[in-house]
């Protein structure tokens, strides 16, 4: 349906404190990544670093990019594109990770 007709962009204005809070969160998370990389967690180093990066990206997308106040369609676009990226990764790795399997 035409959900768009007849209104000017009366969009949500995010209050300033939110922006600053997110900024500090991002800075702290950056610190955490760096710190984590200095200590040896064995195989866990990499997943942790990625997890932190994902959290940071999520914060940016939700608040700096206003996804949280956006239409459902925008959510679909964002989640959809990560889903597609997931398809690329998962299916390519389905090859690389099973190549060494022995066949009986």
């Amino acid at each position, binding site marked *: 349906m035409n959900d768009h007709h007849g209104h000017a962009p009366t969009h949500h204005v995010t209050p300033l404190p939110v922006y600053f809070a997110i900024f500090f969160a991002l800075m702290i998370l950056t610190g955490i990544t760096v710190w984590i990389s200095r200590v040896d967690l064995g195989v866990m180093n990499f997943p942790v670093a990625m997890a932190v990066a994902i959290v940071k990206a999520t914060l940016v997308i939700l608040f700096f990019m206003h996804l949280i106040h956006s239409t459902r369609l925008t959510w679909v676009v964002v989640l959809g594109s990560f889903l597609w990226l997931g398809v690329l990764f998962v299916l390519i790795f389905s090859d690389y990770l*099973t190549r*060494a399997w*022995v*066949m009986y």
Partner: protein
Amino acid sequence: MRSDFPLFPEQASTVAPYVDALYLFLVGITGLVSLLIWIAVFYFAIKYRRRPENELAEEIEPPQMLEIAWTVIPAIIFVGIFVAGAWVYFHINRVPDDALDIYATGRQWMWKFQHPSGQREINTLHVPVNRPIRITMASEDVIHSLWFPVFRVKADVLPNRYRTMWFEATKTGRFHIFCAEYCGTQHSGMIGWVEVMEPTAYQRWLAGGAEGSLASQGEKLFQKYACHTCHTNEATGRGPILAGLYGKQIQLTNNSRVLADDNYLRESILNPQAKIAAGFQPIMPTFQGQVNEEELIKLLAYIRSMPAAAPVVAPPTASAGPAATQNKGTVQ
């Protein structure tokens, strides 16, 4: 123009009947359904052609059941096709345990084959009938693809990596070999013949003038390249003991383990720094550019043939690991 021309390839291997059966099954089922569709299209197009009395089409409510039926039934048929196809594919990839090893090297634009007994040949391959043959192959330059249409098998031949394929010929005779992956100017000239012979004839052919078995040729190279200076049969050598190495799990310095298969041996010789066996220094020089594909095959044949028995103190590398997986087809 020739008057006799084949419309179907000869069946000359154990897997060919399976492939053909699957193919004909597919021709049958899809042909049937397609035929029904064309008949329907033409029948409707003629029966309901536009005439003054049917200017206005009749509106019919599509029955939901019909939609579901022609979604689900094809889906079931398709999954059936998948299962059959996968089954045949498995058959094509699962190398029998008692296969005879032959090595193939592809290069622009010829095929080189090496038999374990040392025979080499170019663009022709002699094999015995009724005996599973495993071909281990690599390319010296670009990707090629070894295709035996009468055996219904084909596999891409990759640079810097060993792959295997197998077949068991069921008919004697002379059949085409094609390169099926585009590889440059003379791609269409990268063809040859496979001669399937009676076992006795094959033995006779083998006896004709070889310079000793692959392994013994490999042993000479092992001396020539001075591998033996480091890889001695004593645990005190600078390099790991290679005897009995093949098919074992190897402990590496970075805490992971790898299976010592052809590809691992290949990498160890050409790019020794990539994976370092635990307990050793990364001092082995690279032989990239010195050892060519064919020599590599000989070296590998030699390493594989080294008896595992001699030293009791196994290298720290080859401690655990299941019984030799040597003859199981690894998925490459």
